């Protein structure tokens, strides 16, 4: 209606909108409203309904993605190419929606039992997912920014969800202040980019930076700021400092969501920036990525070794995993760019599945132990062999041990950097290899606690695992195994090269 009005006023041509392509976002938006409204009208005892609706909405959103994928015609470009639905975005959207669904499963009991504001919680969760889903398609600085804020702002609030818990407050405030600061930095960088390229469209920017040959200082500054901001989002060292505190303070399901969803969102943004906005400025981002990747995986690992709190350890572990996901970026500007992209996607999928699984087990076990300390995991083999096996599976996967998903992700990452055959590539490969070993230090430590230590208080009563968490465990466990044993069944990428080829790298 608004567009009609505008059109009537100033000859504004109403853009043709591909509703099929936008269907996931639309369903999500509607779902958000529905949850909000339902929440208003149901009694306190029926609030669980909001969770159900949120789950249904997320699953429903997957349907158009499936149909889009099945139809399989090429890239759908909307709004003058500022919002694009292609293979890459489809697969990532599906991933975010499933992440959202698993987080809902994980949250149900926690939020319900904690007496937190269920309706609002799911609204915010869905909003965050919406932001991520949008991010996958954003091909314009403005849409990137909007998506970025859309996935950030709800999570600020979620992090502080336990209102009376000062830790949770602290988590929220830290996350918020630094997030806002980072997005301000990003905006500053973006404004400079806009000044250089005279357009906010990523492909235009990419083209503009290409023409000049030599980079200007402004461009370099802009790129560094933007990368730093997304580095913040993916908690790359040295922009990671918020992550451990926030992860530890936030409610565990939220932490799961942050460590998986919001991080993946950051990577998606990073992919579109690197591959589309400034692919040829690799002199800038290649060393930057190298340093970030090296620092991230190393510092993440090293710090994780020292942790006694399991969630905090997982926070550092996810930082270090982020470092591995950054690895392919180092060679994204070489002939391995296509492999790198595939690797990033594969790694994100594996990481998301595995990490969510790990959080699921932690949530399940914490219900019994009531402690976040690693030492509280002792004796799990005796009283919860199933959970122990699953936890082992997830941690082995994170450590990159076959045949669980993680190995494939790591192999892909090494494969990508080695394909490039550049010095950076070889260097990061060796560093990565060493880090893989260090990582086992803390993953192994968890396993050791579970397998080899007795229960700290000799309490060997069984753990009650609620059905929703069982479902989450089932999804993530099966996913982790499947990704490891038959990765190809899951990772049917088709043509991811679209992104590479539409970007300046393809030319």
């Amino acid at each position, binding site marked *: 209606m608004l567009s009609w009005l505008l059109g009537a006023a100033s000859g504004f041509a109403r853009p043709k909108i591909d509703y099929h392509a936008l269907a996931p976002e639309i369903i999500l938006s509607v779902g958000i409203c529905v949850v909000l409204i339902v929440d208003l009208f149901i009694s306190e005892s029926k609030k669980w309904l909001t969770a159900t609706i949120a789950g249904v909405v997320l699953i429903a959103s997957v349907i158009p993605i499936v149909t889009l994928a099945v139809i399989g015609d090429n890239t759908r470009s909307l709004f003058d190419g500022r919002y694009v639905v292609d293979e890459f975005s489809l697969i990532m959207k599906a991933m975010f929606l499933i992440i959202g669904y698993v987080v809902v499963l994980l949250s149900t009991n926690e939020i319900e039992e904690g007496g937190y504001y269920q309706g609002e919680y799911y609204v915010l969760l869905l909003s965050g997912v919406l932001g991520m889903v949008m991010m996958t398609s954003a091909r314009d600085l403005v849409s990137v920014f909007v998506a970025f804020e859309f996935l950030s702002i709800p999570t600020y609030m979620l992090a502080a969800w336990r209102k009376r818990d000062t830790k949770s*407050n602290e*988590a929220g405030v830290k996350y918020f202040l630094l997030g806002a*600061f980072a997005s301000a930095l990003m905006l*500053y960088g973006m*404004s400079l980019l806009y000044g250089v390229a005279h357009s906010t469209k990523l492909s235009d920017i990419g083209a503009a930076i290409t023409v000049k040959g030599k980079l200007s200082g402004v461009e370099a500054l802009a790129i560094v700021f933007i990368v730093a901001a997304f580095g913040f989002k993916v908690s790359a060292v040295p922009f990671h400092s918020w992550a451990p505190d926030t992860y530890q303070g936030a409610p565990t399901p939220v932490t799961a969501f942050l460590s998986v969803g919001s991080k993946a969102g950051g990577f998606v943004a990073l992919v579109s920036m690197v591959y589309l906005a400034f692919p040829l400025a690799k002199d800038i981002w290649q060393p930057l990525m190298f340093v970030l990747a090296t620092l991230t995986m190393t510092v993440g690992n090293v710090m994780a070794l020292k942790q006694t709190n399991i969630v905090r350890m997982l926070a550092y572990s996810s930082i270090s995993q982020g470092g591995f996901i950054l690895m392919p970026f180092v060679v994204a500007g070489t002939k391995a760019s296509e492999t790198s992209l595939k690797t990033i996607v594969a790694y994100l999928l594996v990481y998301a599945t595995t990490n969510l699984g790990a959080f699921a087990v932690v949530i399940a076990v914490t219900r019994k132990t009531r402690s976040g300390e690693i030492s509280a995991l002792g004796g799990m083999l005796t009283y919860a062999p199933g959970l122990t096996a699953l936890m082992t599976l997830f941690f082995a996967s994170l450590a990159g041990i076959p045949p669980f998903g993680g190995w494939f992700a790591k192999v892909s990452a090494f494969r990508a950097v080695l394909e490039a055959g550049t010095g950076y590539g070889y260097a990061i490969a060796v560093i990565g290899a060493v880090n893989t070993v260090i990582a086992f230090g803390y993953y192994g430590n968890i396993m050791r606690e579970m397998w080899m230590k007795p229960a700290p208080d000799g309490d060997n009563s069984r753990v009650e695992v609620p059905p929703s968490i069982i479902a989450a465990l089932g999804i993530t466990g099966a996913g982790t195994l499947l990704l490891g044993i038959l990765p190809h069944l899951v990772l049917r990428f088709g043509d991811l090269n679209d992104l590479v080829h539409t970007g300046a790298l393809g030319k």
Partner: protein
Amino acid sequence: MLINQFLLLGAVLFCIGVYGVIARKNAVMVLMSIELILNAVNLNLLAFAMNMNGEGSADGHVFALYVLAIAAAEVGVGLGLVLLIYRNKRSISLDELSEMKG
């Protein structure tokens, strides 16, 4: 056009903002510093937009509008959080927010 002057102003604002974020211990002041940076951004965007005629000019204006809108939302959330802390801790000093570390 006086683009460089605008950009310079933007840069100065940015720096002040950054300084504020780093140096101020008061949460509200930090929030305000962030707003300063956002203003610098807007200034930049508009200066660039004005500088280029026609093609691409609209992008900057639209961008600036979005920044304004979203910054408002952000500040809303931020103040909410600050309020929350104040309620729990009777203080909005950031130094007291270091329960978790290491």
